[in-house]
C-alpha cells in the first residue's frame, strides 16, 4: 500500500509510432478515489495514454504504477504475460464501442471472466451477475443477448462486466461517444453512481458538462502533452492557456 496520492502513477510516459511521437513525457498521479477526466482534440494522445495504463498500447518509455506495483514491468515474455493478466484483473476498462461478447448473454458477459479467473461456482457467478447488473439497472435484461439491447444498455452491461472483476481502477475510453444523444444520460448516471462510491476513475471524454460535474481534476491534452490541468472550475472556468481556451470554445460551439 502506498501513499494515497500515488495510487496511480504515470511517470514520463512516452510513446512513438516510428517517427511520430504521440505521447511526449507525460506524468500523472491519481489518488485513491479520485476521478480524472482527460479531454482534448482527437489525435491528442488521450486514448493512447489511457490504453497505456493497462498496457493495451505499450509505452515506448516511462512507467505505469498501480497501488505500488509497476504495471509495465520489464519481464521475459511468459512472466510478463502472467504479470499483466493479474494487473489487468484489477483495472476495469470500458470501450467506446462496448465490445460486448455477442455470443454470450448479459449474464455470461459478466460472469465469464470471474468464473474463469477466480474460480467462482455457478451459484456465486449468478449472484455476482445479478448484483452487478442490478447496479447498472440491467437486471431485467440479464438473459438478453447484446444484439437485443440498445447502445446505452450494452454500455451498462459492459460496465457491469468490468465491475464484476472488482477492479481497483476503472478506465473509460469515450464511453458515451458512440451513443445516440438520448442514451448518453443512462450511462452517465451509472458513472456518477460509481463516483459516489469513490471508485478511482480515469475518463477520456468529449462531454465537458459531465467532466465538470463529476470529476475532481481535468487534464487537457494536445499533441501528446498535457497542456493544462487542474480542478474543473479552473480548467473550464478560467483556462490559463490559449490552446485550452481555443479547444473549449470550439467544443462549446459544436454542442450548441
Amino acid at each position, binding site marked *: 500500500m502506498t501513499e494515497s496520492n500515488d495510487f496511480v502513477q504515470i511517470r514520463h510516459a512516452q510513446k512513438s509510432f516510428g517517427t511520430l511521437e504521440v505521447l511526449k513525457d507525460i506524468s500523472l498521479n491519481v489518488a485513491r478515489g479520485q476521478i480524472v477526466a482527460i479531454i482534448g482534440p482527437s489525435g491528442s494522445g488521450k486514448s493512447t495514454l489511457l490504453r497505456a495504463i493497462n498496457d493495451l498500447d505499450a509505452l515506448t518509455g516511462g512507467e505505469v504504477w498501480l497501488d505500488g506495483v509497476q504495471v509495465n514491468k520489464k519481464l521475459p515474455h511468459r512472466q510478463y504475460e502472467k504479470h499483466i*493478466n493479474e494487473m489487468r484483473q484489477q483495472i476495469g476498462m470500458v*470501450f467506446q*464501442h462496448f*465490445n460486448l461478447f455477442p*455470443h454470450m448473454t448479459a449474464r455470461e458477459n459478466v460472469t*465469464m471472466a470471474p468464473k*474463469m*479467473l477466480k474460480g467462482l461456482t455457478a451459484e456465486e457467478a449468478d449472484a455476482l451477475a445479478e448484483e452487478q447488473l442490478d447496479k447498472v439497472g440491467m437486471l431485467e435484461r440479464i438473459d438478453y*443477448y447484446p444484439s437485443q439491447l440498445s447502445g446505452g444498455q450494452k454500455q451498462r452491461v459492459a460496465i457491469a462486466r468490468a465491475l464484476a472483476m472488482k477492479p481497483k481502477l476503472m478506465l473509460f475510453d469515450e464511453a458515451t461517444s458512440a451513443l445516440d444523444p438520448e442514451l448518453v444520460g443512462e450511462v452517465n448516471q451509472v458513472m456518477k453512481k460509481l463516483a459516489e462510491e469513490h471508485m478511482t476513475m480515469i475518463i477520456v471524454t468529449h462531454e465537458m458538462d459531465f467532466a465538470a460535474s463529476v470529476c475532481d481534476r481535468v487534464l487537457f491534452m494536445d499533441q501528446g502533452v498535457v497542456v493544462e490541468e487542474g480542478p474543473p472550475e479552473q480548467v473550464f472556468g478560467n483556462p490559463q492557456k490559449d490552446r485550452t481556451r481555443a479547444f473549449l470554445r470550439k467544443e462549446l460551439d459544436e454542442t450548441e
Partner: protein
Amino acid sequence: MDIDLMMRVYPFFLEAAWTTILLSVLTALLGLACGALGAAARLSRFTSLRLLGATYVSIFRGTPALIQLFILYFGGPQVGIQLDAFEAGVIGLGINAGAYMTETIRGAIISIDKGQREAARTLGLSQFQAFYKVILPQAARLMVRPLGVNLNMLIKATALVAAISVVELTYTAQRYIGSTYKPFEMFLLAGVLYMIIIYATGRGVSWLDRKVRIT
C-alpha cells in the same frame, strides 16, 4: 436413352457412391485438421511458422490436385512412400483441401473485431483464453458457410481419384462404359448421384449455419 440398362447397373453405382462418401468424409476430416494447423501457423507470432503456413497454402493451391495425386501415388514408391490407391486418395485430397480450409479458417478468425480480443485481455484473460472463449466461438460460426463451400469442392474433387484407380463413382462409370459403350447413360447416372450427395451436404451445412447463428 437406355433406361433399362441404367436400372440394371444402378445398384453397383450406389455401392460406388458409398465409396465416394467415405472418401469425402475422410478427406474432409483430414482437410479440417490440416486447415486448423495451417491457420494456426499462418496466425502464429513466429515468422518461421507464418512462412511455413504460407508456403503450404501456395504450393497446394498453386498446383493441380491431379498432379499432387500423381506425385503421391505414382511418384511416392520411388522415394519410399507406399500407399494403396484409396490411402493415397484420402491423403492427397485431404492435404489439398487443407490448403483451402487454412484460408477459410484464417479469414474467419481475422474478421473478428479486434475490440473483442481487447475486451477479453482487459478482463485479465490470457492470449489463449481470449482466443478459446471469445474469438474462436465467434469465428467458428462464421466458418460454417465457407467451409461448406470447401466441402462442396472437395466432394467433386474426389472424382479425380478415378485416375489412380480408386473404385468410386467416376471410376465405376468409366468401367461400365467399357463394357456397355453407353457413356451418356453411365456418366449421367454418376452425375445424378454426385448431385444428390452434394445437395444433401448443402442442406446439412445450411441447417448447421442456422442453428449456430447468434440471435
